[in-house]
């Protein structure tokens, strides 16, 4: 969902996969990306719409995703929770 926010809406699966790969260094499959996006869509956090078919895609249409208001709220809550949980732990990282 963070990748979708970074891509500023209108992103399709392969772009999301590339973004995650570049930022995390983890090689993930396109299937895993779509399975996650499908779950997020079922929860109402993201929405999708079909783009136009292009010849370089073998005449297949893109499925474009964007983050919805509920998704943005969920992200903010997660961010605040992580911040609260990690506050004051900076010095302890060195000892762990």
């Amino acid at each position, binding site marked *: 969902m963070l990748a979708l926010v970074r891509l500023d809406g209108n992103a399709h699966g*392969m772009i999301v*996969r590339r973004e995650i790969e570049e930022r995390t260094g983890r090689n993930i*499959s*396109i*299937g895993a990306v779509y399975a996650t996006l*499908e779950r997020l869509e079922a929860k109402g956090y993201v929405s999708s719409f079909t783009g136009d078919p292009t010849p*370089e895609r073998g005449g*297949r249409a893109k*499925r474009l995703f964007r983050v919805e208001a509920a998704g943005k709220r969920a992200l903010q809550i997660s961010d605040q929770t992580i911040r609260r949980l990690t506050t004051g732990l900076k010095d302890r990282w060195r000892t762990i």
Partner: protein
Amino acid sequence: MSRSSPPTFACWLLKTVVPTPYREAILGDLIEEYTLRTESTSRFTASRWFWSQTCRSVPSMVWSSLRSRDCLMSMSIAMSVYIVMEILAYAADLTISKWVAPQPTTHVILAPIIFLTTTAIGGCVAARFRPGATIVLALMVMITVAISIDLKVCTIPVPWWYEFGFLTLGPLAVIITPTLFGRLKQRGAVT
């Protein structure tokens, strides 16, 4: 296979496994990336990447399919097709044993032809409704043949390879025939 066309079997596997709402999008994404990769690297490297993406996507897609009840639909289609297939095979078998060839030897020769024809037709019908149903149908055929062999349904003594042929060629006919018909159709459309 042209320079920019991805591995055919990998595409077929994805078409079969990926749930309908995302099938076109996933295939399109992979084909687009594959085309870009063939321009910057060798076709072998691009194909290897395509295969790795396919193999790693299949488990998550199967799980997603099970969650979305897509699999239940495939199973019910496969079951319905299987019942029709069995009725057809039984009718053909009955006709042959009663009127055309009452001798057991002729029956042994004709039985595989009836079996393969009905499984091939079944595969085509299942694929027309839902590509995923062909895999389920092939598994059903394999399981029932294995049970028939184990229960020794065939009373006529036959060599092991005869039964093994039923076990392997039946599921293969279910899977391969729709793909072959699809390719023939594509060629027909091109010419």
